[in-house]
């Protein structure tokens, strides 16, 4: 089973990213998936978590995610011990930041990927909404979901007026991370 933890702030779309990944692999790659937010009240700007679980067999585990394969951080002001907590050996940490990777010294055996997703989002969407480019960065770094599946999921789930721009943004962010590799 692959477990992903998304860190964001209320309103940044961390749960939308968790769900888009879920839609992509569940509906377009026929896997078993759970996607859920941190439970409870929703507050704009407050730190929030979201989770995606992916497996080839039915997932019956309903407990909270303790250890994860991938961690995605939509807002680098959230970076701290709670971000690297539970990240498995050989896992991937993706951070949206304008800073250099050296600003996030490794505390374990994982791959660190940094991307300025906000700049890409401002350029293509005209708004600093980074859930789609951060999903793209994870897809490029992990290879665990195909580009076509995510593009199809964007068609399924996002409002028609923002679909094409988000697909363009996805491809731009995906290529940026692939180019870095």
């Amino acid at each position, binding site marked *: 089973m692959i477990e992903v933890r998304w860190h964001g702030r209320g309103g940044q779309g961390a749960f939308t990213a968790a769900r888009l990944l879920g839609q992509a692999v*569940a509906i377009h790659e026929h896997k078993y998936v*759970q996607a859920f937010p941190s439970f409870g009240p929703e507050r704009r700007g407050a730190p929030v978590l979201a989770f995606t679980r992916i497996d080839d067999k039915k997932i019956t*585990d309903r407990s*909270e995610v303790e250890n994860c394969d991938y961690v995605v951080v939509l807002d680098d002001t959230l970076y701290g011990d709670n971000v690297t907590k539970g990240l498995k050996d050989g896992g991937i940490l993706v951070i949206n930041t304008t800073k250099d990777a050296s600003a996030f010294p490794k505390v374990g055996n994982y791959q660190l990927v940094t991307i300025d997703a906000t700049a890409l989002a401002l350029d293509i969407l005209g708004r600093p909404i980074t859930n789609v480019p951060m999903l793209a960065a994870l897809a490029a770094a992990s290879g665990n979901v195909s580009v076509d599946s995510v593009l199809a999921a964007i068609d399924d789930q996002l409002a028609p007026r923002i679909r094409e721009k988000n697909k363009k943004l996805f491809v731009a962010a995906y290529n940026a991370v692939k180019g870095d590799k």
Partner: protein
Amino acid sequence: MSEKMFICGDEAVALGAKLARPQVIAAYPITPQTIVVERLSDYVEDGSLDAQYLHVESEHSAITASIGAASVGARTFTATSSQGLLYMAEGLYYASGGRLPIVMMDANRSLALPWNIYGDQRDSLSQLEAGWIQLYAEDAQEALDLTIQAYKIAEDPEVMLPVMVCLDGFVLTHTYEVVEIPEQDKVDAFIPYQKYANRMDLEHPMSNCVTAGPDYNMELHYQQHLATIKAGEKLEAADKEYGKLFGRTYGGMIETYRTEDADAVIVTLGSVAGTTRCVVDKMRDEGKKVGLLRIRCMRPFPVQEIVDALKGVKAVGVLEKDVDHGFEGVVYTNVNSALMRAADKPATFSFIAGLGGRSILKSDIENCFAKLLRQAAGTPQSPTVEFVKLGCE
């Protein structure tokens, strides 16, 4: 062809309700049930569901409007949670005593005080005596399937009782997973509309015994008691027929997992059964004889099913998100009472967990099993009632 969708538990219930084609929906939004109400009002607004949607001002009105609709023979749906269910309490007894086949979803949520919107099962379990059939789903698919099957059971002429379909707040209501959506024509064939005998009908006026003094009161309760028991076999029959049509079966009032030859079994209900299943697999791999018994139906209570399934088990723990203060977990009370009928009663323990949304980890469940296994190995364990993972003395 059935369609697969990636949706949350609330959306699954709304789609299940839509497929059942209720003629009247009366509901009031409350977290974590709100999405159900939003979706159903969308369906009515966009014309994809031909129902009368009553925007009531409270849960008390939601249940009384449902009672009115059902009493003239309309297929009726409502949904609530927590404080909303308590606010309905008076009406719950009217609905069951009136033998009205209303179907209601309850998003299991904690009760105030302390105020808390997270999931536990104290709301529906506080209403066990309200005379409703109470079903508990383990995942979103089962929640959808049970919503449809609920009408089959409720409207059966030998039952004629309201049914509550319960699913864990947030853990199920707000988690997205793959759900297979049944075909409308097959659902129509599974639960055709029928004119039930006790409806108010101007063409065939009769007394519905809304009032019954000492001369008939006991007889009406006796009939209701027998009809409630009958619902157990109807649930099993509905599950079998549903399985033939849609390819999914869950069993009857209980489901067992690796209980054959088990020394220790955890009895639970709702989504935590899924987590327990993972723990059972891990401990079985380590050679430990543990199993799971999931209760799907709290009313009627599966007395004989539990006695039979736990035959030969040495220690039984009931893990529930409920407490009857000053006593024990109420599911434990029920299970323990059933086991008094067993020829060789196992040692039993009440595990209170997950109150107010406290997370239940796999390691917590493993600790419960460890206590049961120590008991099974001959070392008496205490206390009988244990609050799992308590932060104070």
